[in-house]
């Protein structure tokens, strides 16, 4: 059930330059949240009218954690908040990932700021999981994945960490077999990973992003083109309500 509340910040730190981790005390939200879901955070300055949708990177009994990059006015304001400050949030929102049974081997593929929601997912998936993470340079959160005791592979476009290249290069190099692929990251990456999954006949779930207004499915701002099997044509579904997780096979990757 969706909750709108004032949440207290219990931890807030810059984990690498411009990328922040915020833990929020929000037991109502934490109790029902699932990996892949997101929350709306309302900028303290009310002249910024729209909440910022940010996915949950960790869910505990009484708190939820997000990892965000300072990308504009809203996230800049978030970064100036201190521990014990309060912020208006709403959630949990969206559908989240559909978890396969424990026996299924999963591949988790993340790129850049698409990586955070995959942490809680990987935790739930457990041991039979291969994680492939692609960065520009500094591999933030990689330690968190290592700590789960699963196989983690890293690529960086700078070449300073792991394989020199993108996460798609990692995928080509390892060519892992699996029963399910999960991916989150930039659109072009999701497009490539979906093509790879299709080629290997592995079902894929992708977490999508789009500019959003209401966050709950009312305004139809955040459309993504989806064509369901058997449907004659695509239609715009809502990232916030029908997603953010969609079947990669059903996304129309024409943009």
């Amino acid at each position, binding site marked *: *059930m*969706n909750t*709108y509340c004032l949440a207290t910040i219990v931890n807030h730190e810059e984990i690498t330059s411009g990328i922040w981790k915020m833990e929020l005390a929000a037991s109502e939200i934490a109790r029902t949240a699932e990996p892949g879901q997101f929350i709306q955070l*309302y900028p303290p300055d*009310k*002249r*910024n*009218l*729209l*909440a910022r949708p940010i996915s949950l990177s960790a869910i505990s009994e009484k708190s939820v954690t997000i990892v965000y990059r300072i990308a504009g006015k*809203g996230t800049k304001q978030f970064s100036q908040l201190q521990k014990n400050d309060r912020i208006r949030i*709403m959630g949990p929102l969206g559908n989240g990932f559909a978890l396969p049974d424990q026996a299924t081997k999963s591949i988790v593929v993340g790129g850049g700021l698409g990586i955070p929601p995959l942490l809680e997912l990987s935790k739930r998936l457990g041991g039979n999981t291969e994680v492939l993470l692609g960065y520009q340079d500094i591999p933030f959160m990689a330690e968190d994945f290592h700590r789960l005791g699963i196989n983690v592979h890293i690529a960086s476009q700078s070449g300073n960490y792991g394989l020199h290249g993108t996460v798609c290069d990692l995928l080509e190099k390892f060519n892992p077999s699996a029963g399910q692929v999960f991916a989150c990251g930039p659109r072009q990456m999701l497009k490539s990973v979906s093509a790879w999954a299709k080629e290997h006949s592995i079902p894929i779930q992708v977490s999508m992003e*789009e*500019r*959003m*207004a*209401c*966050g*709950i*499915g*009312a*305004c*139809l*701002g*955040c*459309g*993504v083109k989806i064509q369901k099997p058997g449907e004659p044509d695509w*239609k*715009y579904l809502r990232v916030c*309500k029908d997603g953010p997780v969609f079947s990669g096979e059903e996304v129309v990757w024409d*943009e």
Partner: protein
Amino acid sequence: MNSGMETTIAGVTLKNPVTTASGTFGSGREYGELIDLNRLGAITVKGVSEEAWKGNPVPRVAETQDGLLNSIGLQNAGAKHFIENDIPFLRQYDTKIIVNICGHTLAQYCSVAEKFADCDIDLLELNISCPNVEEGGLSFGTDPHIVERVVGAVRHYAKQPLIVKLSPEVSDITEIAKAAVSGGADAISLINTLRGMKIDIHKRKPVLANKIGGYSGPGIMPVALRMVYEVCHSVDVPVIGMGGISTYEDALEFIMAGAKAVAVGTANFHNPYATVEIIDGIWRYMKENKISSLEEIRGCID
């Protein structure tokens, strides 16, 4: 509890003067998870067309200081889907149903009005002011002769009282309002969005895929208030005021300018409880100022 807040629009009595602005509230389903829809005077639903419309390419929304740009393009599942799914949903609640209708052609406007003729809804709102569709919409709402003709034609097919929603993008709003009334409008609502734009200087591209979209939010309120005031003084039919209303104080300004009811739009995105907070705030203001009926303050500005 809210006695004294009732307001009547074309024979339909709303328990309080607060409704939602079309397109910001869907058909109430999503907000109904957060607020009690029974509290609302009416729910004005997202525009409905004869057949399903896909809407415009994304990105469709962009934030500006104090405002929002949208170019959704009236994506909707069409009249049949709405009639089968949304009317039964809305009728569970003790609130009036205002169905916003849209079209690309005069024939489509008439057809969608006709589809609702035997439906259990309270009021129709004719959208001749959407800036995000290439044909119909705004192009029907800026010339008084066309306004009168479109309203007259739709009036012929509509069985419910007809509200005509106006665009602010005209030099004389009273001329358009009068044309709508002479075409048969039972009420006027205004304002729809103003056309606006935002450019991403890093990408050197417009933020909206459509480049231009409708600008809404607190930034437009003074313009909306002025136009509502002018229209209230130029036509005899009830006026529903909207444009940037986000607090009860804003709503009272519109009522004092003469509005029979007000619609809350973009504020829902910033605060999902905006509608009920505005209703509660108006009630508090009435008590604090010993006002027993909103009629005492409605149109108090000469």
